């Protein structure tokens, strides 16, 4: 079956009313879902996955529980702003999608623009202190892709901690797009939990543009979806910007998880730090592609990238593709990878202390996961992230 057959069942009348959405739909139809022939998707064949995707939602679907956090929050259900559940901070509002947002060359962003569901607008004035807020995207089995858009604009010197939770049940395609703009010296902590249902497909695209001295700390914990990809495009456009882009993905069964990052150093004296940790069990497959681009003017760039993967079964797989594209001559860029099974020396040490192999393995995997949560520190969101790890743990039956 064609990967685009679902479009025949989508009501496209509203799409046709807006020229830019119509153009985006055409762009998506022409490109289709990305596949292995696209270099950026060499390890993740989304088109193949979409060919046999089950788009038929069951008639009666159970309601989903919201995570219990006493924080300002915006709740989207199946891509639609849920006014009853949302308790937005004053600087958060429903993003109405009749304005033109960039579609770019990415067919998934084009799909997001074309189908254009609700979104969340977060705008902080200069020097505004936003505290901690939450965005929850819940979804259930759906006959068409769920395509929310999030726009985050932080004025000069503003700061915010943003916790994003994606969760759901049944088979659906979640295609969120984030446009994040950080003003001079602005600081955003962006903690993402991708816990979409194990039948779902999650393909998120996050654009971050950073002015001088801005700080972006992104951490993604991905435990959900049958196929997931988090794709980041970060542009450091002013000097002394600082980006941390960390991710941990936990994969079991036949899950496929992909973290792809492109960090463009377009100004001098910026630093980027990335650590991606993957725990892969069963027949699951992980991918990390990290590209660091350093423009000619981006002298004194400090770039670092590390990929750590723990393979827990003989059939587990990780594909790692670091790419450094450096046009400046005075830079420090490095990357590394450690990929392997649990260390037999560590297992023996535990066994020699009376801890049997199964419990020893569990302790060591837990330790790896605990370390993976370091980027979020003791954030109020930590219990939600730990609960997601527990839930994955039960599923993997380690």
């Amino acid at each position, binding site marked *: 079956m064609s990967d685009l057959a679902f479009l025949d069942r989508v009501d496209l009348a509203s799409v046709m009313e807006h020229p830019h959405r119509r153009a985006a739909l055409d762009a998506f139809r022409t490109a289709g879902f990305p596949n292995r022939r696209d270099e950026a998707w060499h390890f993740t064949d989304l088109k193949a996955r979409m060919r046999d995707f089950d788009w038929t939602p069951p008639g009666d679907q159970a309601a989903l529980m919201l995570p219990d956090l006493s924080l300002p929050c915006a709740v989207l259900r199946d891509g639609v702003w849920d006014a009853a559940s949302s308790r937005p901070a004053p600087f958060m509002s429903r993003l109405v999608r009749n304005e033109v947002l960039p579609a770019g060359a990415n067919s998934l962003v084009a799909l997001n623009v074309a189908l254009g569901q609700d979104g969340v607008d977060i705008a902080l004035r200069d020097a505004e202190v936003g505290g901690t807020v939450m965005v929850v995207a819940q979804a259930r089995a759906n006959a068409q892709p769920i395509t929310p858009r999030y726009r985050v604009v932080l004025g000069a010197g503003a700061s915010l901690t943003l916790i994003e939770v994606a969760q759901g049940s049944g088979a659906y395609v979640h295609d969120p797009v984030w446009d994040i703009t950080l003003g001079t010296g602005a600081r955003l902590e962006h903690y993402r939990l991708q816990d979409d249902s194990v039948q779902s497909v999650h393909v998120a695209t996050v654009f971050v543009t950073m002015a001088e001295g801005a700080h972006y700390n992104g951490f993604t914990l991905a435990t959900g979806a049958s196929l997931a990809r988090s794709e980041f495009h970060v542009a450091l456009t002013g000097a002394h910007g600082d980006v941390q882009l960390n991710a941990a993905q936990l994969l079991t069964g036949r899950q496929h998880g992909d973290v792809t990052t492109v960090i463009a150093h377009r100004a001098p004296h910026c630093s980027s730090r990335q650590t991606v940790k993957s725990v892969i069990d069963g027949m699951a497959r992980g991918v990390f592609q990290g590209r660091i681009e350093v423009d000619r003017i981006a002298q004194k760039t400090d770039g670092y990238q590390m990929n750590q993967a723990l393979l827990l079964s003989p059939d587990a797989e990780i594909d790692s593709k670091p790419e450094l594209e450096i046009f400046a001559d005075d830079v420090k860029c490095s990357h590394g990878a450690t990929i392997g099974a649990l260390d037999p020396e560590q297992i*023996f*040490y*535990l066994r*020699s*202390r009376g*801890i049997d192999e199964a419990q020893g393995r569990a*302790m*060591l995997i837990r330790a790896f996961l605990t*370390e993976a949560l370091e980027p979020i520190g003791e954030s109020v969101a930590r219990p939600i992230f730990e609960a997601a790890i527990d839930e994955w743990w039960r599923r993997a039956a380690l």
Partner: protein
Amino acid sequence: MLEIKNLTASIEDKTILNGIDLVVPDGEIHAIMGPNGAGKSTLSYVLSGREGYEVTGGSVLFNGQDLLAMEPEARAAAGVFLAFQYPIELPGVGNANFIRTAVNAVRKARGEAEMDTVAFLKEARAAIKRLSMPEDMLKRNVNVGFSGGEKKRNEILQMALLQPSLALLDETDSGLDIDALRIVADGVNAARGPNFSALVITHYQRLLDHIVPDRVHVLAGGRIVRSGGPDLALELEAHGYAGLEAA
């Protein structure tokens, strides 16, 4: 009581232990000395059940049980403790959690009640004080960022809390300054009693100034070539190991 009879073992078809006979009665501390490559560490690994060592002959009875047939964790539960020559780092695993898990695993295997966190910490803090160790040793990750001396002291702390009936100390003195050496020795001496025996494996005599053994055995070429009282260690210190292989 530990009874080793004609034990032979090899690594990758290379014979390392060449017929060891050794009896360590309850309550006694025996030292195993010998030159590098004599098989000292191999003996401790074979006794603790590390993979990669093939026992090709002989037997080891521990309190009448066939030790070699037991999994490493079962040996620990039966009361065997190996203090590693190079203790392993466990990033992300808190030391208190690690030791408590070990203590409870051993207690469970022995049919004893598990200890809760409060009771464990009370006991662990008391042991730390007794052994003059820094209290933050419990809070840190297992052996991560520990100095060589701290790692060895952490082994002794584990020994104190696991309360084994047979301790195998594999070159526990290597890399220790005199203060750390004394702490380690104090830890072993504190454990001394009718239900505790130990094999102290060392290259040098100096540890034996602090842990006075009941017997000293010289291991060379994969077998025990001489046995004697504590004075044997002094003799070896004075004359070296030369010529012992031929004995």
